[in-house]
C-alpha cells in the first residue's frame, strides 16, 4: 500500500474544499456571531439579575411578550397551515402570486411594515374610518402588538410549512385515500405527521421572530409600559436609564431564543425516541397474545 494514497479513515474528503483561507473566514464569522453573546453573558452579575428582575418594566413586558407571541403563533399556524398546503399543492398562477405576496414581509423592513399598518388601520388609514365607525381603534393597543407580530412572523411559518408539504409525496396521499381516509383524514394522518419536522421549524422561526419584533410594533403599537411595551421595546427604554437592567432584559430574551434553538435541535431525536417507544409498546401488547 502506497503511503501517499492513504487518507485518515473516516475523514470526509470534501470537508474543506476551500482550504485554510475558507476555514479562517468561517472561523472569524463564528467569533463575530458568538462574541457579543458571550460578552452579554459576562457583563451581568447576580446582583444585576436581581435588580433587573425587580425593575417595574420587567414583569409586564415579559408577560405581554409571551402572551402576544404565543397567541400570534396560534393564529399564524391556524391560518398558515391550510394556506401552506394550498401553496404547496396548487400549480395555478394565483398560488404563485399569493406566495409572492406572503413572502413580501420577509424582505420588507419591519419599520416599513409598521408604517403600512398605520396606513391601513390608523385613524386616517384605509380601514381606519370604517373600524372607527363601529368603535374599534387598533393602533397603540395590544391588538396592534399582535397584528404587527403576525405580519412579520407568519411568512416564516408559511414558507417553511409549504416547503415541508412539498416534500410529502402525492402517492402517500393517494394511498391514504384508497385505504379509506377522507381528504381531511389523509391530511391529518399523513401529510401533517410527514411534514411535522418542517412545520415545527417554521413555527419556531415564526415564534422567535414574533418575540423579537421591534420596528413594526414601535410604530404601530407604540412603547407604552404595561400596555404595548414588549421585551425588545423595554430593552430600549431600560437602556436610557440603566444599562444593567437592559443587559438583564437582553439575557432573558437571549435565553428564550437559546432554549428554542436547543428544542429545535433536540426535537427530531426526541420524536424518533417517542416513535420508538410507541413501537416497543405495541410490541409488548402483541407479545401478550
Amino acid at each position, binding site marked *: 500500500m502506497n503511503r501517499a494514497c492513504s487518507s485518515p479513515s473516516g475523514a470526509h474528503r470534501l470537508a474543506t474544499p476551500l482550504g485554510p483561507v475558507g476555514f479562517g473566514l468561517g472561523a472569524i464569522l463564528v467569533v463575530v456571531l458568538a462574541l457579543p453573546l458571550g460578552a452579554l453573558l459576562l457583563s451581568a452579575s447576580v446582583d444585576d439579575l436581581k435588580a433587573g428582575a425587580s425593575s417595574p418594566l420587567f414583569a409586564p413586558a415579559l408577560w405581554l411578550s409571551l402572551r402576544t407571541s404565543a397567541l400570534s403563533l396560534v393564529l399564524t399556524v391556524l391560518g398558515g397551515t391550510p394556506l401552506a398546503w394550498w401553496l404547496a399543492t396548487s400549480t395555478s398562477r394565483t398560488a404563485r402570486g399569493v406566495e409572492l405576496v406572503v413572502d413580501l414581509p420577509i424582505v420588507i423592513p419591519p419599520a416599513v411594515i409598521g408604517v403600512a399598518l398605520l396606513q391601513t388601520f390608523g385613524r386616517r388609514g384605509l380601514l381606519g374610518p370604517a373600524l372607527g365607525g363601529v368603535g374599534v381603534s387598533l393602533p397603540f393597543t395590544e391588538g396592534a402588538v399582535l397584528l404587527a407580530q403576525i405580519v412579520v412572523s407568519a411568512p416564516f411559518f408559511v414558507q417553511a410549512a409549504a416547503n415541508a408539504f412539498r416534500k410529502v*409525496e402525492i*402517492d*402517500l396521499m*393517494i*394511498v*391514504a*385515500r*384508497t*385505504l*379509506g*381516509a*377522507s381528504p381531511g383524514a389523509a391530511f391529518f*394522518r*399523513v401529510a401533517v*405527521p*410527514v411534514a*411535522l419536522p418542517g412545520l415545527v421549524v417554521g413555527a419556531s422561526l415564526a415564534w422567535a421572530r414574533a418575540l423579537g419584533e421591534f420596528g413594526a410594533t414601535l410604530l404601530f403599537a407604540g412603547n407604552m409600559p404595561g400596555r404595548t411595551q414588549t421585551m425588545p421595546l423595554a430593552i430600549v427604554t431600560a437602556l436610557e436609564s440603566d444599562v444593567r437592567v437592559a443587559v438583564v432584559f437582553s439575557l432573558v430574551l437571549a435565553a428564550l431564543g437559546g432554549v428554542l434553538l436547543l428544542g429545535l435541535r433536540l426535537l427530531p431525536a426526541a420524536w424518533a425516541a417517542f*416513535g420508538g417507544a*410507541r*413501537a*416497543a409498546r*405495541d*410490541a409488548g*401488547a*402483541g407479545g401478550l*397474545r
Partner: protein
Amino acid sequence: MSWRARVRARVGDLTIDVDLSGGLAPLALIGANGSGKTTLLRVIAGAHAPLAGEIAVGGTILYSDEQAIDCPSEARRVGYVPQGYGLFPHLSVLDNVAFGLPAGFTRVSRAARRERARAMLDGLECAHLANRRPDRLSGGERQRVALARALVIEPGILLLDEPLAALDAAGRRSVRDFLATRLRAARVPSLVVTHDARDVVALEAEVCVLDHGRIVQRGDVSALRAAPASAFVEEFVG
C-alpha cells in the same frame, strides 16, 4: 370477480382513452414513459377525475358519467401500491398495515385491529417486521408490507405500479416469484404496470400495451412476440 375501466380522462397534457377489462388473471400494463400507465392507475383509484366513461369492479360501479356516479377514493376498495411502495414513513410496519382498518375506539377493538394487521403480515411472511420503520426495510420487505397494507382492506382490485422496479437484480427473481404466488393466492384481480417481460411471464399475465393514452395491443407474450404492434413492443418481448 371481474372489472372494467372504460374511461376518457385528461391529466396535464395527456389524454387517456381506454377500454380495459379483466378477471382474476393479472393484466400487465406496459408502455413507454409518459404513455399514461400511472395516470390510468390513479384514475381507477379515484385520484384523477375522468371526463367520461365507466369504472366497475366486481359488479360495483365506481364511476359512471351516465349514471352520475363518482365514488370517492376512500369508498372504492381499490388496493393501490404506487411505485416505490408509498409506505408511510412516520408509521411502523404494523401501523402502516392497520391504517386501512377502521379506527378502534375501545381497547378491545384496538387490539382486534392490530391483530388483523398482524395476521395479514404473518400471511405474507413478514410478521417479524411489525415494529420496524419503513426506512429500515429492504426493497423486497417494503413490497410485502405494501402488499399487506393494500390487501388488508379486502380490495376488489389491486393496482401495482412497477412493483419490482425498486429492487436490485439479485433479489428481484425471488420477489417476483413471491409476488406471482401471492397474487394467485389472494384471488384478487390485478393490474400491474411493468417494464420487464420476465414479470409478465412469472405473473402469467396478459399484456396490454399503452401508447399516448391509448391501447395499441393486447394479448399474451407469445401473441405480442408473433406480431408486435410497435418497435416498443418488439423490444419488450425480444
